[in-house]
């Protein structure tokens, strides 16, 4: 009896996210939502801020969580809650880019833009860690997106699900992202 009670407590404290969401869907208990929020809010915000800017990331984060509250019943359980949430955030962000007509600037090109002297000079002035930061920011949108998701420990399948493109495409983007990062960093080193 005592063991069983302890076991239940332990289970409830680490309740899987999909169960949290399902229970939230049925009960609308704010405490369940808070638990989900604690788990994923910062990670989602970080992903969004790296793909846009602080103001937009705040807006999209807010929309994303409000969507989750309103459309929790839309979660069918085929993917993890985190994947589902990131996919919502990613789609909202791209919708916003399209609305602002910024999508043309960040569209699905895999090519690294020409390295302008000003960009190289900027990278040169940065400290090592900051240089990596700037180099990542300089990556094409879809490569940076794939890289960020992988660093957030999403699998290739999950990245594919979030971005809506095939696994092979994801692999290619990740490979290009790393190659481009090396190119950027090495070029700066050579100049330096």
């Amino acid at each position, binding site marked *: 009896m005592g063991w069983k009670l302890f076991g239940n407590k332990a289970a409830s404290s680490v309740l899987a996210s999909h169960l949290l969401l399902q229970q939230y869907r049925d009960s609308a208990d704010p405490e369940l939502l808070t638990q989900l929020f604690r788990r994923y809010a910062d990670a989602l915000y*970080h992903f969004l801020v790296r793909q846009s800017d602080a103001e937009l990331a705040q807006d999209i*984060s807010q929309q994303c969580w409000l969507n989750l509250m309103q459309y929790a019943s839309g979660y069918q359980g085929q993917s993890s809650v985190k994947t589902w949430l990131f996919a919502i955030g990613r789609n909202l962000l791209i919708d916003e880019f399209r609305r602002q007509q910024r999508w043309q600037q960040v569209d699905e090109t895999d090519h690294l833009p020409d390295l302008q002297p000003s960009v190289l000079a900027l990278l040169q002035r940065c400290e090592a*860690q900051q240089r990596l930061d700037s180099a990542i920011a300089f990556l094409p949108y879809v490569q940076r997106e794939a890289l960020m998701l992988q660093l957030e420990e999403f699998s290739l399948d999950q990245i594919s699900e979030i971005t809506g493109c095939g696994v092979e495409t994801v692999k290619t983007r990740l490979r290009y992202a790393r190659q481009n990062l090396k190119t950027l960093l090495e070029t700066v080193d050579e100049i330096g």
Partner: protein
Amino acid sequence: MRSVKPTDKPQDDQQLELQLQQWYQQSKATHQMPADLKQRLSSHSPQKNVVDLTKWRRRSTEWLALAACALMIIFWQKPELMLYKIDQVQQQDNMIVVHYLGARNTEPDQQIVNNNAQRQHLYQQAYQDYLQSSQLTAAQHEQVYWRENIDAGWQLKSCDAIVLQINRDLLNRMQRDQPEQWQQLEQSQFVALQFGQQGQILGIKQSSAAPNCTAI
């Protein structure tokens, strides 16, 4: 675009991975969701009405456009100031009395209407006219005429003369604003005109009786 070097050293790869992992953890620690936004979202209750500021911001222009449309509609729906006047026109050997009813839309009047004080004055005047016409209605007399359809509209005839022509514009307006009355008149061969003391037409209605021509 710069070409990527074909040979990447494994050691460089490992170093880059390590750098990326360190960078990512540091970046996540630096870019956390702002506390006020967390507070705002945490305090959201699904039962409450959700105020989505972002959507509101995004839709503010749509709301503005909607409000503008509503104002335009209200403006256009504002009752038109009507003008009723009686003129005498010489036509060949006859003197014809022309009753005119139409929108008061001349330029100077529009300017007057734009002025609030003058608009109030016009309303007062219209109200006085209404009171006066109500009093005159009591003193009205009624005549029955034949109604004929002509190209220009309707023609009302007494026993020996054409009394009134109602043009198509006015009929269309009547059809639009008072469809039932218009239909009754349209289906009737006889109509009765109600006149005020000064000869102005106060009303028109269907009549079941034919004009009385025995007195002529």
